[in-house]
C-alpha cells in the first residue's frame, strides 16, 4: 500500500504544468486540452487587406493572360529541372491548460497556456525522387506576459531550461526550446482572444525557423539559377529588427530570396487589382488553363521597403475543379536586384518558371488532400514529411 502511495505522489511534481504554475506563481486549472488548428481544407484567404497593389513588375508589359502551354510542353520533353528544393513549415498548436494570475485589486485573471510543435523541413528532388535535406523541430510554449512577474529578460529562457530538466521530459529525450510571451494588454475596444495572440507567437517563431533554413541553404550554396527553392505559402517575411538594423545584413536577407519562389494554395482574389485600380476577382477566376496573369508588384508597410512580384498560374482546367479558384496558384518572388526593383523581373524568366510550375501539376495528391487541385506534389511530400515527424497529439498532450 505504502508503495502505491509513493507512486501516486511522485509524478505530480514532474508534470510540466505543475512546474510552470509553481515557478510563475499562477494556479493551474487542469483544463481540457485540445488542438487549435483548423484542418487542411480548401479556403479563400480573406486577409491581406492592407497590401497595396502597385505597377506591373515585369519587363514586358503584358495586358492580359500569357499562354504558357507550348513552353510547358517543350520543357516537359526535356529532362532537366530547375525547381530542386521544396520547403514547408508547419505548426500544431494546442491549448493545454488555463492558468490564473492575481492582478491588481486581488482579482485573479485566467489565461490560456498554449503549446506548439513547430516543424520546418526541406526536401530536394534528385532524379525525379524526393529526398529529405533538412529538418528542424521544436516544442514551444506560449504564456501571458503577466506570468513573468518581474519582467526580467532572462526569465523565460531560464524557465525553459528548468522545464527541460524535469524527469519526464528528460526520460523522453525532448525539451522545450523556448517560451514565447504573448501580450495581454487590450487594444481599443476589441475583444482580446488570447489563444489567437499566442498562436500568432508560435506562427512567428515558425516563420523565423523557415527564414533560418532558407539562409542555411543559401550559405551552403545549394540555391542558384539552376536550383530554385519552392516555399509553400506566401513569402511575406518581415525582416526582423536585427535584419533591418544592419544594412549589410539586410541585403543578405534580401539576397537569400533570390532563388526562392513562394507558391500559395490559398490567396485572396479580392486583392487582385490588375485592371485599373478596381478589385477584380473575376480576372483570376477566368484565367485559362496553362496561362499566367501579368506580374504585379506590391509593397507593404509592414514589410518595409521589400517589393514583391506576384502572379497567378492556372494548373488545372476549371471544368475539373469545384470552384474557379481551385487549380490556380499564387506565385511570389522578392525583387532582389536593383534592376528588378527598377524594371521588374525578366518576363522570359517568369514564363520559364511558370511553365516549370505548370508541369508540377502532376502527380496529384487527390484523395489524400482536399486541396489537391492547388497542391504541388513535391511540396505535398515535404509537408507530409514534416507532419510525420511530429510527436503524436496524445503523447504531446500527455506531457501537460
Amino acid at each position, binding site marked *: 500500500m505504502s508503495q502505491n502511495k509513493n507512486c501516486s505522489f511522485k509524478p505530480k511534481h514532474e508534470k510540466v504544468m505543475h512546474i510552470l504554475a509553481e515557478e510563475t506563481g499562477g494556479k493551474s486549472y487542469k483544463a481540457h486540452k485540445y488542438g487549435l488548428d483548423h484542418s487542411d481544407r480548401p479556403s479563400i484567404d480573406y486577409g491581406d487587406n492592407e497590401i497595396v497593389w502597385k505597377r506591373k513588375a515585369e519587363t514586358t508589359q503584358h495586358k492580359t493572360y500569357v499562354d504558357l502551354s507550348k513552353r510547358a510542353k517543350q520543357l516537359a520533353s526535356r529532362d532537366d529541372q530547375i525547381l530542386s528544393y521544396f520547403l514547408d513549415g508547419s505548426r500544431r498548436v494546442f491549448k493545454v491548460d488555463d492558468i490564473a494570475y492575481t492582478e491588481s485589486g486581488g482579482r485573479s485573471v485566467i489565461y490560456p497556456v498554449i503549446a506548439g510543435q513547430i516543424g520546418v523541413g526541406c526536401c530536394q528532388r534528385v532524379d525525379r525522387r524526393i529526398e529529405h535535406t533538412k529538418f528542424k523541430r521544436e516544442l514551444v510554449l506560449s504564456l501571458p506576459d503577466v506570468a513573468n512577474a518581474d519582467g526580467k529578460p532572462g526569465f523565460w529562457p531560464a524557465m525553459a531550461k528548468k522545464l527541460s530538466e524535469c524527469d519526464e521530459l528528460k526520460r523522453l529525450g525532448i525539451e522545450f526550446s523556448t517560451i514565447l510571451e504573448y501580450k495581454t494588454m487590450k487594444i481599443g475596444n476589441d475583444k482580446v482572444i488570447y489563444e489567437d495572440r499566442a498562436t500568432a507567437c508560435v506562427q512567428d517563431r515558425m516563420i523565423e525557423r523557415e527564414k533560418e533554413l532558407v539562409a542555411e541553404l543559401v550559405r551552403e550554396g545549394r540555391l542558384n539559377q539552376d536550383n530554385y527553392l519552392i516555399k509553400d505559402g506566401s513569402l511575406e517575411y518581415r525582416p526582423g529588427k536585427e535584419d533591418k538594423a544592419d544594412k549589410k545584413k539586410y541585403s543578405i536577407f534580401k539576397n537569400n530570396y533570390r532563388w526562392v519562389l513562394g507558391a500559395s494554395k490559398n490567396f485572396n482574389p479580392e486583392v487582385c487589382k490588375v485592371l485599373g485600380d478596381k478589385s477584380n476577382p473575376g480576372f483570376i477566376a477566368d484565367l485559362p488553363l496553362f496561362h499566367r496573369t501579368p506580374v504585379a508588384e506590391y509593397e507593404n508597410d509592414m514589410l518595409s521597403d521589400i517589393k514583391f512580384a506576384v502572379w497567378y498560374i492556372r494548373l488545372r482546367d476549371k471544368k475539373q475543379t469545384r470552384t474557379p479558384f481551385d487549380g490556380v496558384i499564387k506565385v511570389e518572388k522578392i525583387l532582389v536586384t536593383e534592376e528588378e526593383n527598377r524594371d521588374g523581373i525578366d518576363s522570359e524568366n517568369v514564363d520559364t518558371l511558370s511553365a516549370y510550375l505548370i508541369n*508540377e501539376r502532376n502527380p496529384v495528391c487527390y484523395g489524400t488532400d482536399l486541396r489537391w487541385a492547388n497542391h504541388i506534389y513535391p511540396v505535398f511530400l515535404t509537408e507530409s514529411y514534416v507532419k510525420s515527424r511530429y510527436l503524436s497529439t496524445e503523447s504531446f498532450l500527455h506531457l501537460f
Partner: protein
Amino acid sequence: MNKLIGRVLATEKSPTTMDEFNFWTNSDQRLHAFDIVKVMHLDSSFTFGVIENISHITDAQSFLTNFISSDFGDVEIEEPTLRVGMNYAKAKVSFNTKNLYTPVHNNAKVFLASADEISMALGLDRIQNPLVCGALKMYEGTEEEVNLPVYLNSKFILGPEGAHLNISGISGLASKTSYAMFLMKAIQDNYLNTEQDDSVAFVIFNVKGRDLMAIDRPNDFATDGHGEKEQTHSYYTSLGLTTRPFQNVKYYIPYTSNNSPKQSTYLPKNDIEEYIRNNQLKKFKYIYSDDKENIEMMFSDIDDPAQTMESIISKIIDNDDRDFRDLKTWNDFMEKVSEKAQKGSTGDKGDISVLSWRKFSRVVRKAIQDDMFANAFTPQNSECRLADELKQIGKNEIRVIDIAKLPEDKQAFVFGDAVRTIYNLKLGEYDSEPKVKPPSRIVIFIDELNKYASKEIPKTSPILRQILDITERGRSLGVVLFAAEQFRSAIHPRVTGNCATHAYGRTNSIETSSGDYRSLPTTYQNMLTRLEQGDYLIQNPVFRTLLKIRFPKPIYKQFK
C-alpha cells in the same frame, strides 16, 4: 556484414505475429519469394523469415488519383516527380536463434542473411544422413546472391522415418523424370561412396520412348550449347556428386520374336544387341504356369462390382480346381476359357454365369495377344521371367523395365507383376530361394502414376491395392515408391497422403485451384504456374518450410 534492406512494419491492421511479419524495403530492392531475411529481435537474437509475397504501394489513394495525375487520362504525360512508393514484403517466421517466438518489433532492422544463416534458418545445418536433393538460390540477380546445396535426411525419404516421393507437374515443363533420376543418382552416389549398414537398389519403369534406356551412358550434351557439359559437371561436383552416369544398370524389354515386324520397345536393334553382348539386357516373358496368379492385373481397370471376375480368377489359380489345375500354356488356358464361355455350357455348377466367362474371355484374350505371353523362355537367348530377375536384385543395382511401347493394359500387367514381386521379396517370401539377397531398401520409380492410382481407378483394382500396400507399409518393409504424375489432384489421397516428400513442379492454375494445393499460400500457388524448367518446390518433414530448389541437367544420355 549483412546488408540492411528494410525495417519491420507493425500497425493496428497488420500486426506482426508469432508466425509472420511485414517489412518495407526500397522499391528497387530485388527480392524473391522464398528468400530468407534476418530480423533483429529480443536478447540479441535474430528471427528469420521466408518471403511469401511482395507488394508495391504508393501514396495514391485510389486508381483515380493516378488517372487524374495524367491530366485526366493523357497517356503521354510524364511526371516530373516520381510518386512516393515502397515495397513491403510479407514473411513467414521460420526460426529464431534463441527460440523466441514473440512477434518481432516495429521498425526492427531487416537484413539479408549469409549462406550459413540461411542453412540455419531452414534447418539445413543439422540434417543427419544428408542426401543432396538440389540447390537453392537466394537473392537472385543481386550482388549478395547465395547458392546452397540442399540436403534431405535420407531416412526421411528412404525410410524408416518417412518414405516415398511424389512429384507432380505438367509434362515437358516440369522435368519430373529428370528430377526423380537426379535424386536416384544422388542416392546411388551416396551408397556407392560410403560404407553404410543400409543398402539400396532401384527398379525403374521406362514409360516414354527410350528416355531411360541408356542411363548408364554419359550425356554427350550434343544438342546443348557450348560449355554446357562443363557447367553441368561443375554443378554436380558442387553438390558433392560424381559426374558418372548410373552404375550397375540392367535393362529388361518385353519379348518379341526377331521375325515379328512389330517390336515392343523403342530401343533400336543395334542397341539391343550391344546391351545383350554386354550382358546388360534381357527380354522378359510370362509363362502360364508361373504367372497365372498375375492374371488379375489384367483386370485392374475393369469394374467388377459383383466380383464375378475375382471368382473366376480364384478358380483359375486354385491348384485343386479340376478345370484349370493341369493347364500348362496360355493356349490351353484360352481354350478352357473359351469352352466355359460356350453357349450351353453349364458354367461352374451355375456359380459363374456364361456371360461372366464371356466377359473374362474378352478381356484376357485381348491382353495376352502378345509375344511376351509364351510357353517357355530360353536363358541362352537372353530371355527371362521378369519376376525371377527382380527377386535377385542386389545392392546398388538398377533394373530398368521398358514398358513404353506396350499397350496400357499390358503396361499395367507388367507394372503390377513387378511391384508385387518386389513387395513379396521384401516380405521375405522368396528368402528360401537361391541367389535371393535383397538390399535393405528398394526404390521403385514409376511415371504416370495416375494410370494405376488415380481416384477414378476401381477400388477393386489389384494394382491400386498393391500401391496402397507399398505406400502404407513400404516404409518399414523397405519398399520405397518414387512416383510422378501430371496432376497430383487426380491421385488417390491415401497414396499422396503417405508420401513424406513432395516435389511440386510447374503446373497450371486449374490444378492449383484444387483442394490438394489449398495448404499452400496463394503466392506459392501462383508461383507454381510460372516455375522454370528444373525448379521445384520441395516439402519434407525435416524442412521448416517449403523450399524452392533447382537441380542440374541429367548426367546420363538424352534422346531428343
